[in-house]
């Protein structure tokens, strides 16, 4: 068992670093590869993504701990729970950000696919943020279930646990390579590969986390399933257009 302990003070530091790193990678990519939309439109998309991600992350993050929400509701402390620090989730951020961007693009009349530039920065940002989740240990709700594997980690309670955050970082390295492939891909494909890959991964890895379940899966897994269904619907609706781009 590898001793790690719980160091929650690092979580906000690495979370801030994750935002900064993701943004820096985005800037480098945009400078090197150019952009499909002009600067003001890109900032509009970024603003929509940031607000949508914030709202989605918080809502799903709070809802994920639904027994606590139910208890707060019964004791009349729902508002206090909502303004309490902590309680965000990456999946909620991704889905909320994606939804907000699609709505704002519709309002702004932006028809180009704008997500490709975000695929690699998201991989990098989430990986950096996951280091924070890992070192935060038991204070963060992302630790793994007990295991007897030789690489089990002790987060301070003497129990060997699956280092699920490290698994996720390794997966994100692979996903980052996949979305950075040099082969020309249809517009928007890199972002959709990222979303499909990450959401599928979360459905699988969350079985190794001790979270409250609803019909066999936790709320994040159900949300991932909804996200994958939306991606499949989007792919079906635009398949003809994408095939024309590939052929072109």
């Amino acid at each position, binding site marked *: 068992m590898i001793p790690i302990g719980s160091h929650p003070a690092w979580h906000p530091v690495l979370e801030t670093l994750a935002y900064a790193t993701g943004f820096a990678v985005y800037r480098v990519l945009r400078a090197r590869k150019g952009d499909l939309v002009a600067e003001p*439109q890109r900032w509009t998309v970024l603003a929509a993504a940031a607000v949508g991600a*914030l709202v989605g992350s918080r809502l799903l993050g709070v809802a994920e701990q639904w027994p606590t929400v139910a208890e707060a509701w019964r004791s009349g402390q729902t508002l206090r729970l909502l303004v309490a620090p902590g309680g*965000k989730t990456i999946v909620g951020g991704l889905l909320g950000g994606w939804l907000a961007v699609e709505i704002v693009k519709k309002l702004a009349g932006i028809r*180009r696919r704008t997500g490709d530039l975000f695929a690699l920065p998201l991989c990098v940002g989430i990986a950096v943020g996951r280091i924070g989740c890992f070192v935060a240990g038991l204070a963060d709700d992302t630790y793994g279930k007990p295991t007897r594997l030789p690489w089990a980690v002790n987060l301070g309670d003497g129990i060997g646990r699956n280092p699920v955050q490290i698994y996720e970082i390794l997966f994100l390295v692979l996903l980052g390579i996949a979305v950075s492939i040099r082969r020309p891909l249809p517009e928007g494909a890199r972002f959709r590969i990222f979303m499909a890959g990450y959401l599928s991964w979360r459905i699988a890895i969350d079985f190794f986390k001790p979270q409250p379940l609803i019909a066999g899966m936790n709320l994040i897994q159900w949300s991932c399933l909804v996200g994958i269904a939306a991606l499949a619907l989007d792919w079906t609706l635009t398949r003809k257009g994408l095939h024309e781009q590939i052929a072109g």
Partner: protein
Amino acid sequence: MSRSQDRRFPFAKIVVILAAALGIGIGLCGLDYWLAAKGIGKSTEEFGVGPLDSLSLIVMLLSAAGLALALIAWAIAAIFRSLRSGPEGDAPQKLFDSETRNDDQE
């Protein structure tokens, strides 16, 4: 504010910065646990009061209020801009700048 001025006003950048600040404010609970472990303030049990709760609450409230104001101001500016430009034939009115680059510019 003139049309050119509100076009230049960086609503989107302000919104991104405030959203990031709010996100970080919500995440400050990690430092809370750490301070509580050092004996500074009470331990954060469920949604109890931790040593940094007041600081993170201030950051959250200020950034949330700023974010709400910026979004409202942005929406109002966009509506005014849309009304000033008026409908162009049967084309749909656009609330935000929407010039996309042409394919030959990529």
